[in-house]
């Protein structure tokens, strides 16, 4: 039988929320040479069963959403990053050393139900 699911509005569905942290707001522009800030995006939103297929989800998420629809005791699939990218930071430390450091998986590019 068709499983009835809550009509989640678009806004509440799992998607990437953009958040830019400007280093100047933290007073860090005095020692971070570049970049001027970084995208601290995050993933948030529901993963209803009816949409798991279209929400860039894993098969596991599809199964978990199906199980949740049948037995609400089973937790819903969650909204997680599915594509990440690195950042590089050029800064100066207290010994006047100029440091360039790469950090991977720092920026959330895409989200999905996992």
């Amino acid at each position, binding site marked *: 039988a068709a499983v009835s699911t809550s009509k989640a509005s678009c806004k509440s569905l799992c998607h990437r929320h953009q958040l830019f942290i400007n280093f100047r707001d933290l007073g860090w522009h005095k*020692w971070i040479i570049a970049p001027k800030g970084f995208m601290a995006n995050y993933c948030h939103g529901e993963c209803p069963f009816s949409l798991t297929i279209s929400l860039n989800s894993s098969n596991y998420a599809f199964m978990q959403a199906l199980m949740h629809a049948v037995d609400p005791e089973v937790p819903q699939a969650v909204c997680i990053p599915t594509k990440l990218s*690195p950042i590089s930071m*050029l800064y*100066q430390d207290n010994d006047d050393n*100029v440091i*360039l450091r790469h950090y991977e998986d720092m920026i959330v590019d895409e989200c999905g139900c996992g």
Partner: protein
Amino acid sequence: LQFHEHVFLRFLGLDKVPSPKKFQPVPSILKRIFQAQEAAASTGISKDLCYVKELGVRGNILRLLPDQGSFLYSESLSHTSCLQKLLSFNLSAIGDEEQLTMAQLGLDLGPNTYYNLGPELELSLSLVQTEPHVTDQATPKMGKMFTLQSVPWPQGVLHFNLLDVAKRNNDPHKNLGLFLEIVVKGGRASGENFQLEGTCARLRRSLHTSLLVVTLHPEQCRSPSRKRR
């Protein structure tokens, strides 16, 4: 935004907020590497963050260490000695767990526009035993000379690979100490005289030395996974 600053700083490998008095000049090589990385990240091209293509070495942390040494003025300067300088680099910023993959000394003798085709110089680098964090030792204890190089006339930046020297010396609680001497070998090609003192004074003014160090952080850079058979 209640921002747990100390957490982010520790993540960056820092124990407190740096408060530099003035920004050091950023060498073009670091700018180039930074911009290449930014461009790759913005176009979604995945790049090996643990290999510095521009330098041809593995590593994910690049540091430019300023020289904290000082010029030496001693009467015993031979009449052709142009300058003697103690070079001192503070290696304590390098974490114990980091692997050193590059240590490149940069000697910027200034633009060759200062000199019209002369004089020829001879440049020597020797190790010295430095006390931790003492930068203006009057008479350094000389160690082995490891570079002797002739330079047709003062020009641009000269690079020297100090990886072995730095590895042998990489006791993070000590500075890497070197002794630099520049000797004038000869006048201009035409044999005319030139003002030794004026040339050396200009060299002392324009000389800029720094050490570019690349390290690999093993937790952030797993060795490249073996190809599946």
